[in-house]
């Protein structure tokens, strides 16, 4: 190309990595897509084959974390590396809330996104990770507008409503998305003097709150998570305004009644594919009916959130 000397100088400005635009930009590229929890390289390949936009590399899916109890930490580094080398789509991994060293390790591994997640055991009950210190972007969970804007003020470049992970019960995901949506709609009709009071009540920076009031939306992409277990669940969250979905136990805990490993994995792939299609065609009931016919007979068994004890709930961790 024929660049002359004078334009060359400007053109050779140093590339800027880890900027806000670049961090929130990857979340924008994931929109309209499905991010799937995987615990093996084999599952990661199935997820990519089904059309996932990213995988979340985990040692245990949330429903198993629930069952096993104990302390849930960042996944083993070797497992994350195996999954990274097995797929070409982005790989995300979870760090404990407040555990900035787990986050440093994940960044050093070159994961594409870190989920500072309530699904793992909390490492710091007072503070979240200062996410502005990192080049790698973070996604964080939120149950309401206050949590969402606090996480964004700490540097989160993407939000996911928390739902209640590992239950297969969509009720909390619906509650959290409707809560945030309702709170933002209320903001858009507030007078300027009322916004200061709202910022105080929600314990968030006024600038972020004012931005949400002006645009009628969060300043970053918002996905739904925690309870999606069928194509209909995924489409429900999209119709309620989610920009994409995380599916945890809903895929690789489906078809649990099938003993043969290969047959079970094939059925789980059918579930994954159907959820991907349901997120793209979320407002087309005819296609939703078609894809719902393709899923395994047995969805994940699930737990009703209403029957869980207060200390069994994950969503309350890290507010």
């Amino acid at each position, binding site marked *: *190309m024929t*660049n002359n000397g004078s*334009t060359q100088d*400007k*053109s*050779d*400005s*140093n*590339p*800027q*990595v*880890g*900027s806000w*635009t*670049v961090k929130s*930009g*990857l979340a*924008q*590229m*994931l*929109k*309209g*897509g499905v991010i799937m929890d995987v615990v093996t390289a084999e599952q990661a390949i199935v997820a*990519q084959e*089904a*059309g*996932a*936009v*990213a995988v979340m590399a985990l040692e245990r899916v949330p429903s198993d974390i629930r069952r096993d109890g104990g302390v849930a930490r960042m996944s083993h580094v070797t497992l994350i590396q195996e999954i*990274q080398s097995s797929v*070409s*789509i*982005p*790989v995300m991994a979870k760090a404990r809330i407040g555990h900035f060293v787990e986050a440093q390790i994940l*960044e050093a591994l*070159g*994961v*594409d*996104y870190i989920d500072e997640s309530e699904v793992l055991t909390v490492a710091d009950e007072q503070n979240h990770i200062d996410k502005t210190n990192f*080049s*790698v*972007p973070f996604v964080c969970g939120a149950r309401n507008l206050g949590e969402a804007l606090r996480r964004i003020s700490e540097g989160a470049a993407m939000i996911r409503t928390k739902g209640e992970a590992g239950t297969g019960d969509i009720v909390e995901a619906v509650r959290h998305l409707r809560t945030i949506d309702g709170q933002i709609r209320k903001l858009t009709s507030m007078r300027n003097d009322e916004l200061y009071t709202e910022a105080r009540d929600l314990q968030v920076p006024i600038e972020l709150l004012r931005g949400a009031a002006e645009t009628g939306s969060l300043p970053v992409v918002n996905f739904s998570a925690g309870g999606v277990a069928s194509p209909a669940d995924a489409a429900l969250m999209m119709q309620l305004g989610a920009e994409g979905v995380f599916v945890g136990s809903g895929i690789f805990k489906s078809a649990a009644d099938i003993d043969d490993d290969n047959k079970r994995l094939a059925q789980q792939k059918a579930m994954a*594919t159907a959820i*991907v*299609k349901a*997120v*793209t*065609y979320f407002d087309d009931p005819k296609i939703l009916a078609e894809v719902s016919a393709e899923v395994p007979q047995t969805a994940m068994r699930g737990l009703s959130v209403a029957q869980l004890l207060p200390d069994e709930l994950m969503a309350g961790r890290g507010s």
Partner: protein
Amino acid sequence: MSLKIGILALQGDVAEHAEILTILDAQITNVRRESDLTDIDGLIIPGGESTAIARLLIAYKLIDPIREKIIAGLPVWGTCAGAILLAKEVTNLDRPSLQLMDIRVTRNAFGSQIYSFEKQLHVEGINGDPLNAIFIRAPIIEDVGQDTQVLARLEQGPIVAAKQENMLATSFHPELGKDVRMHQLFLDMCVQSASSGDKYVSIER
């Protein structure tokens, strides 16, 4: 005349393209079905995950109808994933997609997300200040065919924007900034195409 631009809306940053096109007074159609292609003056294939979009294109039988339109002259612009889907040759995409543009593309050429970057970039055909080009897990164009024009390179190295007749490809995301000039360049291609007799004309309706 207001142009009607289709945006392939299977997955990705569809709304960002729509926002800029609206500033430029274009009408928008989200393309998710063959019937959405009927009376558009141009098509944008947005950023997103190329593997995911490729699978949905196949599952909903959109490859052939889109190919036919573009071969007939419909202007098309692929950003990032869109450029990958347009390329005749892609290293490490596991299945063929539209395969129309004479470019050889490598996916995710810079590495994982921590190597994503933004950078001032001169693009052939864009006058004035350089564009602030945003590269997110971006592909590069390794090589172009004889009839394909190189529009931009990174430091005289990798090709990051190219044009071949009615097809435009960029490795970066002009839709993520506030700068409308790259979209204007594409709309100019659409105007030219819509007004020239031997090219694609939207008369199906």
